[in-house]
Every structure is written in structure tokens, then in C-alpha cells.
């Protein structure tokens, strides 16, 4: 209560905030040691499965199959052999995981860059161009989130393989891109559009109108305004969506499986791991090390950029 005597507005504010903090703490019996205990307990339970996998991936195969991973302290062993063999030694005609790792990057980078750029374009137009039916168009695009991936799979696969024909009339010829990454890039880009446009539009409408007016008065056209005003201001929003899209594509199984499945040259890590779980379900030295190879990238991205990730999440929920 000493601070009241000084009377300066700033101190009053600090003091009030301090009071609020303390009252909150008092009022919340859950912020007692018991509450903390339960919170930590839940966090531990949540971590144990991943920890078990992580520890197992560094044990030698004999130990893995004869003792529980939780005995590693009394029975310590450490080896990088599991990683070496899954990453660099293929089995029979199947290439090693490092190749699928490359595939995952080769799929994820364009499948993040393309939708981010094209959705920013569209969001800009929908936010700042004046034209008839603008709101209708925006809500239509937003509503397209209702279309589940599954609804588009078969026709899109057919389109990529055979083109589109009505009777004898060829609307789109066969594109000849099956077996390359291109269908996977395109599919991810298409499926990301509604949510990407929605999220970025929300952000771009918040740019102050005066700023856009000022750019126009200075003689900047739509393109220059985009380049000089909109783009620099929307970097945080773009980053936060880009992280989302990156994680989503990296972790995806369905698109990778349907548009790149069965083709060793282009299938991502997830597809290969799902396959391994089916064919070599008991080989835990392979599965644990393999799973960690696939997990490490998104988890690193997540911890490095958690702030953006959370912001993106709060801005518009998630897709899936």
C-alpha cells in the first residue's frame, strides 16, 4: 500500500495491476500447490509416450525387445545404429528414409509457398478492391471450407491422370504430370485456399485505410501498393499461416498417399512410415527411429516459432 502515497498515475496503474494479480491468485484456489501438482502430473502423462519412443530409438534392438524402455536407467545402452540403418540403409528394393525425408521437403516447400502467395493476392483483392459481389465472393470462398478433402480426391486424381472430357469434347487434356510432385503441390495448394484466404483477409482488412489512401495519393497503383504497403505490413500474418501450412503439409498422410502413394520417387515420410507400421509392425528399432526422424522437423519448427503458431491458431481455429 506504500505506492498509493506517491500518487503518480503510472505507479497507481502498477499498483492496481499488482493488486489484481494478487486478488486473482487468492481467489483461485486452483492456483494452489495442489493445482500445480495436477497440472504437472497431466503434463507428465502427456509426455511419457513420446519420451518412451525417444529413449527406445537410442537403445539397441536386443534391449528394446527384451526389456521395457523405462528400465533404461538400470540397464543403460546407447546406440545410433537404429538411426543409421533407417536413414541410410534401404531394405531390399525400398530406399532408406533419408530419401523420403528429401521428398517431404520437396513436397512441403512449394506446397507452402504457392498457397501463401496466391492466397495473399486473393485476400488483398477481396479486402481492398471495390467491385460488385465482393462480399458474396468472400463468403463463398470461406464457405468452401465445408468441402472435405475426401470429396475432391477421386475427381482430382482422374483430372490429373486423364484430363476432363465431356463425351468426345476435351475440356482439359491429360496433363502428364502423374508420378511427379506436381499433383501433390497442386492438391495441397487447392485445399489450402479457403482457409488461407480467410485468415489473410481478416488480417489485411485491418490495414489502416489512411495508409492505403496515402499510397494512392502518392500515385501508387494496385500492384505498387501491394508491393510497397500491403506486403511489408502483412509479414507476421503470412508467417503465421505459412507455419501452419508447413506443418499441415509435412504431417499430411491422405494427400501424400493418394497423389503420391505407391511411387517411391515422390512419397513423403508419413506415407512410408504408415507403410512400415503395417509391414514391420514389430520392428521397434526401425519404427521408433523412423518416427523420430519425421517428428523432429515439425517439433523444431513448433518450438522455434511457437508464438506465431499460437497466434495463427487463435486467429481462425485450424483446418483438418
Amino acid at each position, binding site marked *: 500500500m506504500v505506492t498509493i502515497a506517491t500518487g503518480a498515475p503510472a505507479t497507481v496503474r502498477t499498483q492496481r495491476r499488482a493488486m*489484481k*494479480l494478487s*486478488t*486473482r*491468485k*487468492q*481467489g*483461485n484456489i*486452483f492456483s494452489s500447490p495442489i493445482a*500445480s501438482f495436477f*497440472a504437472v502430473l*497431466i503434463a507428465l502423462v*502427456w509426455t511419457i*509416450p*513420446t519420451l518412451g519412443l525417444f529413449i527406445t530409438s537410442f537403445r539397441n534392438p536386443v534391449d528394446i525387445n*527384451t*526389456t*521395457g524402455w523405462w528400465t533404461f536407467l538400470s540397464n543403460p545402452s546407447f546406440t545410433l545404429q537404429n538411426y543409421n540403418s533407417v536413414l541410410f540403409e534401404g531394405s531390399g528394393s525400398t*530406399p532408406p528414409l533419408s*530419401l523420403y525425408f528429401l521428398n517431404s521437403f520437396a513436397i512441403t516447400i512449394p506446397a507452402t*509457398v504457392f498457397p501463401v502467395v*496466391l492466397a495473399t*493476392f486473393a485476400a488483398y*483483392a477481396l479486402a481492398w478492391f471495390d467491385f460488385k459481389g465482393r462480399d458474396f465472393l468472400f463468403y463463398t*470462398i470461406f*464457405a*468452401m*471450407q465445408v468441402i472435405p*478433402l*475426401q*470429396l*475432391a480426391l*477421386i*475427381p*482430382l486424381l482422374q*483430372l490429373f491422370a486423364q484430363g476432363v472430357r465431356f463425351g468426345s469434347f476435351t475440356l482439359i487434356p491429360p496433363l502428364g504430370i502423374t508420378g*511427379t510432385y506436381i499433383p501433390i503441390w497442386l*492438391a495441397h495448394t487447392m485445399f489450402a*485456399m479457403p482457409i488461407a*484466404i480467410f485468415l489473410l483477409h481478416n488480417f489485411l482488412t485491418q490495414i489502416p485505410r489512411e495508409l492505403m489512401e496515402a499510397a494512392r495519393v502518392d500515385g501508387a*497503383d*494496385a*500492384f505498387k501498393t501491394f*508491393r510497397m504497403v500491403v506486403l511489408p505490413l502483412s509479414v507476421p500474418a503470412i508467417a503465421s499461416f505459412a507455419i501452419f501450412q508447413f506443418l499441415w503439409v509435412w*504431417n499430411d498422410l*491422405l494427400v501424400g498417399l493418394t497423389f503420391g502413394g505407391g511411387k517411391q*520417387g515422390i512419397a513423403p515420410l*508419413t506415407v512410408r*512410415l504408415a507403410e512400415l*507400421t503395417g509391414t514391420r509392425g514389430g520392428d521397434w528399432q526401425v*519404427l521408433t527411429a*523412423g*518416427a523420430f526422424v519425421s*517428428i523432429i522437423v*515439425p*517439433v523444431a519448427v513448433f518450438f522455434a516459432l511457437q508464438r506465431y503458431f*499460437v497466434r495463427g491458431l487463435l486467429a481462425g*481455429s*485450424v483446418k*483438418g
Partner: protein
Amino acid sequence: MSESMWIHLAKSPFATVLPNILLLLIGIAVFGVLVVLIFWLAERTKDKTQNRLKYFVFLGPALLLLVIGLIYPAIRTLFLSLFDASSANFIGLNNYIWAFTQPEILLVLRNTLIWTIVVPIASTAIGLAIAYLTDRMRYAGLVKSLIFMPMAISFVGASIIWKFVYNYEPDLSKPDIGVLSAIVKALGGTPPNWLLTAPINTFLLIAVMVWIQTGFAMIVLSAAMKAIPDDVVEASMLDGAKGWSRFRRITVPMIWSSVVVVLTTITVSSLKVFDIIRTMTGGNFQTSVIANEMYQQSFTALDYGRGGALAIILFVGVLPLIVYNLRQVRKERAIN
């Protein structure tokens, strides 16, 4: 480079990937050059032309992708669902009748229903509890990060993690390597063959999804709790509301709209769940759900009619939930 090295390279598995990596670089480069070129040209066109050009440049690609990638395929799937496996003969609603009369598919629909009820409720309840427990707690960030981390892991990765937890050792004399079996044995029980035993296997798969989605619920609800004005908290305190009663009477009502959004979002994800089932059981042992069955019918049985019908059923299930969320967003925009 010597000839033998070339042969070695050509034989290595990387030979198949090299042209593809090249394609990656070309793809990114072409895209970048196109964007720069279009901007360069557009900024040099006359005002009148440019006014029309800007719609093509900014809106054109997105609209084209949406029409080709979503609208056309959705309509075509609806169309295919009225045809037989070969897409040649019109069979009306037979695929839908099949879906709602076959015992296997009824089981799939029942499982999907269980998923969409249990996952959202469990994840939201646990997420809400953690959000409240960690509100103003020290080291809350660390606790939250640990619970949130599964969100970053792929469903496939999560499935492998949990398959290991559920590992079953048929030979009772050998020590367990799966945590769950070990716990059950330590408590004096006999572990069943977890993933092969219906109906518990469905709930074990559901646990994986809850493990992933709880972090999402926690983050959104925690942010909503932080946004409750301090005056409200103080006023409730003057009224003597504490702990549980404050949680029930103040916290939950104040963040109810966020709770509903979390519930609907997780319900949609649960309706579409595919990876977990595909990786852990392949849909066997009575664990299949609609998205997995859709894949099975379309890509294993190659029956585009039945696959299409299942996709449409999935769409009809998702529709009301997303329409609800859409209306919420419109309402919020109208207020702002």
C-alpha cells in the same frame, strides 16, 4: 566423374529422386519468375488496362484453383456416387442404400459417431481443466508447451508412439515392452491384446486423438480466459465466488462461445479422422471409420460409386457444424 561413379549413382535410390529435386527447383523458380514478371509488366501498363488486369492477377489464380480443386470435384463426386463401381451405369441411390444397410458400414458409422462424441468432449474437458489449473501458475508456459506439443506431431507419428504404448506381449513369461501392459500387470491384471480386442481398441485409438486435440482446446480456452476482464473477476470475488463455484459461474459462461468453437472444430476433425486408423489398425478389428472406409472403397476396392457416396455422407455430417462456425464468424464480423 568416372563412369563407375555414374553407375553407382544411377543404381542408388537417389537416382530416382534427383530429377524430382530438379523439378522442385524449377517449380519454385518458374513460380517466382512468373510473379515478378507479371508485376513488372502490370506496373507498366496503362491505367485502364491495369484496372482490369488487377482482377485477373490477384483473384484469377485463386478462383481457378478453387473451381478446379474443390467445386468441380465436389460436383463430380456427387455425380459418381449415383453410379456403379465402373462409373458406367446409373444406379440411383443404391450406393447410399448400401451404406445404410450393410452391417460392416453400419459399424463404421457407429464408430464414427463414437469418435465425434467422445473426442470433442474429452479433449475440451481436459483442455479446459488444464487452462484453468495453469491460469497464473508459475512455469505454466512449460506445462502448456508439453501438452501442446502433440499438435505439431503428425497423426502417423502419434500413431507409432501410441502403438508402442499399446504393444502386446503374448508370451506371459517375457517382460513387457509396452507401457500399458506393464501397468496392467503391475496392478495384478492380465492385459488383453489391446488393438485387436473390440470394442476397447476403438477407445484406445480415440485416446490418441484426445492426446493430440487437448493441446488445441487448452490454448484457445486459455487465451479466452485471459481475455476475461479483471473487473468481472474482482466483482465475482466480492460476491465470494471461489474456486469451483467461480469456475462454474463465471469462467465457463464468460468463455462459452470459445468452448463451442473448440467443440465444433474438434468434432469436424474427428469426423474426418483417417491417419490414426489407417496407421494403427488399417481399419481392421472393427475399428474402421467413415474416412477410412471411403479410402478403402475408392482406392483398394476401386469402387468410385461407393467411395463417392461415403464422401458425400461425410460432407453431410460436417456441413451443419461448419455452417454453424461460419455463422458465428459472420456475427462477429457484423459486430466489429
